[in-house]
């Protein structure tokens, strides 16, 4: 179970990285096509969808990695017990919200599939196809948050704190903005 979940988060993260790579390839291809006089109109839409997919699919992985920023000024001063209550509270709130987000991301995309809604740009495809990245990403984030909540309830240190501490101990601040 543990391994299966971790694999799922990371797999979605790798997929997101491929979409970042995809943006790069498409942007270069677009300028080359334009120079040679070929049409590249639909590519703008594709780049926009890739951008969304890279963000949504990476959410669970990024969250678990400890890269989602938050204000740690106050919570770092709490004792061990206080810190656990705080983490449980924050994760509880996050779980409620990401659950709501996942619900809407699913409901809305399901409806657009049902009514065969099409995209409005130059590239006409059923809009649920690109929007599926949002649904999958939001569901995975919800699962990841609940996963961490369960961990904290059982008395373990959340993964996002652990991984961030390890990184900072190595002197790696490259991902802190």
């Amino acid at each position, binding site marked *: 179970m543990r391994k299966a979940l971790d694999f799922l988060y990371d797999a979605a*993260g790798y997929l997101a990285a491929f979409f970042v790579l995809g943006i790069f390839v498409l*942007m270069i291809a677009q300028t080359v096509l334009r120079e040679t006089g070929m049409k590249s109109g639909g590519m703008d839409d594709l780049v926009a969808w890739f951008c969304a997919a890279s963000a949504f699919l990476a959410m669970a992985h990024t969250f678990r990695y400890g890269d989602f920023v938050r204000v740690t000024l106050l919570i770092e001063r709490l004792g061990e017990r206080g810190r656990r209550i705080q983490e449980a509270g924050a994760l509880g709130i996050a779980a409620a919200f990401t659950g709501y987000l996942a619900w809407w991301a699913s409901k809305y995309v399901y409806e657009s599939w049902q009514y065969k809604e099409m995209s409005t740009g130059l590239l006409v495809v059923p809009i649920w196809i690109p929007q599926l990245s949002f649904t999958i990403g939001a569901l995975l984030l919800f699962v990841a948050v609940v996963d961490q909540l369960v961990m904290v309830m059982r008395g373990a240190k959340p993964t996002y704190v652990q991984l961030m501490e390890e990184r900072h101990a190595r002197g790696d601040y490259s991902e802190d903005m």
Partner: protein
Amino acid sequence: MSLIEIAGILLAFMFALLAGGVWIALTLAIVGLACFTFFTGTPPGKNLFSAFWGSTSSWTLAALPMFIWMGEILFRTRLSREMFDGLAPWLNRIPGRLMHVNILGCGIFGSVSGSSAATCATVSKVALPELMKRGYDEKMALGSLATAGTLGILIPPSITMVVYAVAADASIIRIFLAGFIPGFILMVLFSGYIAVWAVMNPDKTPPPGPSMSFVEKVKASGNLIPVTLLIVFIVWVLVKGIASATECAAYGVLGSLAIAWWGGSLTWRNFWESLMSATRVSCMIMIILAGASYLSLAMGFTGIPRALAEWVAAMQLSPYMLIGVLAILYIVLGTALDGISMIVLTSAVVLPMIQKAGFDLVWFGIFIVLMVEIAEVTPPVGFNLFVLQNMTGRDSNYIARASIPFFAMLVVTIAIITAFPQVVTWLPDVVMGREK
């Protein structure tokens, strides 16, 4: 309940969530959700979907992962070593000598990177141990590195500017162009301070290294040619206006990959790590933007930003006073928040205010970037301080104290751009024509 009271309640709610350690992106969206549910008659769910989808599926925003990736690739090259070796021979005779490597190095790396912490880390990696070995003053070295590192977000490309441009719905290229001259002024001020300090404290600067002939100097700088070409390319693309910011970013990635390949550091491992790292950082920023766009949408429905803007306008503050008040607000926020969050958190409310008071959005973008730079070196939360604390083991408060003179130069720059706004708006106006 008046709109101002509602705004107060929402603000208190937001601070409670933030203080409790709820992730910033989620906090913004949760406050937006509360705002929709309790203070508007509009259904929150569909708007949540469209705000998240609409703000992330954006062609303009695709520049963000590209610029971040570019910096991540260069961070993993030998660039920091080459910069030190290439710059040092030229600085032997100037008062302050190699200390200027910190400023020039940060300026150069800032021209290819959009992040302040990455610039600070990259330049410090080699410059700091080299300066210490040669007996330069530690306090001066730390202060200049911490503060000059923030040039990464003032000199384009800049991740902070992309975020601001998206939040303010302003042109990315225009804001990039606006950053060049203030960035240059800031570099002159930093280097000027170092030179004056060196003249006043002659015993604290070690003797010059062995002098080199001109040809030797040029040879030592040879490794800097690729990065110089990349900078020239980026500036040329921006000034000529032949490509959009997103295309410019993609070619920046291509150029960085070429530099990494040239220097022999383009391994699969580095490639993959830089890509994953860029994916995570850009995901984090884009989700914050999505949360902020949902909150802005909710605020728009309530009419709070307009009411606040009118409320501030009714106080009849002079423009300078308004800027002064905002500067204090951002310094306070900057002690606890990172720059990106600071911008998106305030944009929904502050931007209408600023426009009503007659300020230019591009000018305000540079102002806010300078405020973010200050935030990076103010304790307790300042990422450049953390970077150097980690590299030296010195306490972050010590580094913050060492940065005070350079911090003052940032304040001087803010004063300059406020007194002479043309410094900011001249270049974008010349290149792209005046904005209507």
